[in-house]
């Protein structure tokens, strides 16, 4: 489903956010991306959605080399990938329901689908009573849950989550992880960057550890460290 071949990403100022990284993630896998702050986890994920272009190496998503993807095709790549962003990235002038509905409207889903899916997913992340709130009227954890709902709502092939539990209390985190697990069981490939030792150690899934841009460990049924 996702394949990296010797991918390097060098930012200006000679920062190697990713260095000669190779990995092969099969359809339906659940992968934790761990590593200290600044080790390249977010960069790894951003390369998959073509937010960044690799300096060297090749990346395949769903069998396609996304290196030579023409610009106008990028939106279609992104529709197959649900993204939970570390900084939420909600539209500040749309309320919660609209933010989630937007992800469906963009891909041309009919109105009645939007009308039933959005309340369902908000129910799932526990935000039914905040549907009409604007993002700036939400707590940090609530914003993160909206971001998760938006990424889930169109049942993408791949789900990328950048520290989706970073702002959540343990109880809510467990709920979110259960949700991700359920999504994963329906065949969706999940890649999740995280710092949460508890979650990684409990779930016992494949762990890819990054350190200063290098993949230093790639372990099936791994632990945080």
């Amino acid at each position: 489903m996702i394949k990296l071949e010797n991918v390097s990403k060098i930012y200006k100022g000679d920062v190697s956010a990713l260095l000669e990284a190779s990995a092969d993630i099969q359809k339906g896998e659940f992968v934790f991306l761990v590593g200290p702050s600044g080790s390249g986890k977010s960069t790894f994920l951003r390369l998959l959605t073509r937010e960044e272009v690799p300096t060297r190496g090749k990346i395949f998503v769903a069998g396609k080399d996304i290196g030579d993807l023409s610009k106008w095709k990028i939106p279609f790549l992104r529709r197959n990938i649900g993204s939970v962003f570390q900084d939420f990235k909600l539209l500040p002038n749309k309320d919660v329901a609209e933010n989630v509905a937007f992800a469906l409207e963009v891909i041309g889903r009919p109105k009645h689908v939007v009308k039933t899916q959005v309340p369902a997913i908000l129910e799932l992340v526990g935000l039914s009573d905040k549907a009409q709130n604007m993002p700036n009227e939400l707590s940090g954890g609530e914003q993160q849950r909206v971001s998760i709902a938006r990424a889930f709502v169109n049942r993408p092939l791949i789900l990328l989550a950048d520290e989706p539990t970073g702002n959540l209390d343990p109880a809510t985190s467990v709920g979110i992880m259960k949700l991700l697990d359920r999504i994963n069981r329906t065949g969706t490939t999940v890649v999740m960057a995280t710092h949460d030792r508890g979650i990684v150690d409990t779930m016992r899934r494949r762990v890819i550890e990054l350190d200063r841009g290098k993949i230093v460990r790639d372990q099936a049924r791994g632990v945080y460290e």
Partner: protein
Amino acid sequence: MALKVDYLVRETGQNLRRNITLTVAAVLTIAVSLFLVGSGLMIRQGVQNAFQRWEGGIEFIIFMNPDATEEQVQSIEDELGSNPQIKDYTFVDQEETYDEFVELFSDQPNMVESVEAEDLPPSFRVIPTNTDADFVSELGKNFEASAGVRRVIFAADSIKQVQRVGAWISTGVLVMAIVLLTAASLLILNTIRMAMFARRNEIEIMKLVGATNSYIRIPFILEGLVHGLVGMVIAASLLFGGRAVLSDRVLDLPILENFVVTVNETWVTVLVLLLVAIVVGTVGSAIAVSRFLDV
């Protein structure tokens, strides 16, 4: 990919409502710009109207001596009546010439006062069948030698010069209108550009969620169009209002009488503004959006 009408309407409506500061700013800018362009066009129309009466069909004028006898006048008139190359002619006697003189130079009363009807030459204003300059000049010269004729003046030498001055002024005002139009376009484009800048994060996020360029662009373009149209309506109201006030109060000064711009002519101006609003609003937004969508 089908863009749903209700998505567009809702999205555009929300953008307009939720960024009310931007909406008001953009609409005001456009209204002011279009009002200025409209004023320029209307002033031009007024100047043209004022010069219109100089652009009649008179092709040459035979001036008699002020003291020409009635027989002399009669003989010229006979000649004109019997010449098949003359389409039409009018005799303007001294009193009429004086009236015209007074009207023309009502803004120079000391000139008017210094001239009496009997100082002014009566004249024939002649329209030949053919308007070719050489032909007209040939025809007119025939009358020069006749008794009592002081001078024959040709359109090429006189009215055309008047027209030339009129054209100069008219061109000047047109240039002004074009400058204003360019300025307005610049301002509107700038406004849209700033509006896009103010919402760069939003656009960024839309792209990340997988929205195609057209999906992002079209609501912004429609928004630009709405800005343009609302601005246009405000500008048009100001123009109609301004015209009404001016033609009621200011323009009853005799010299400015001919300057009046009719309601119909105002409508034409407003049509031009509508066009500008649509083109600049839509195209401007499209350009501005594409500038920010380019990854």
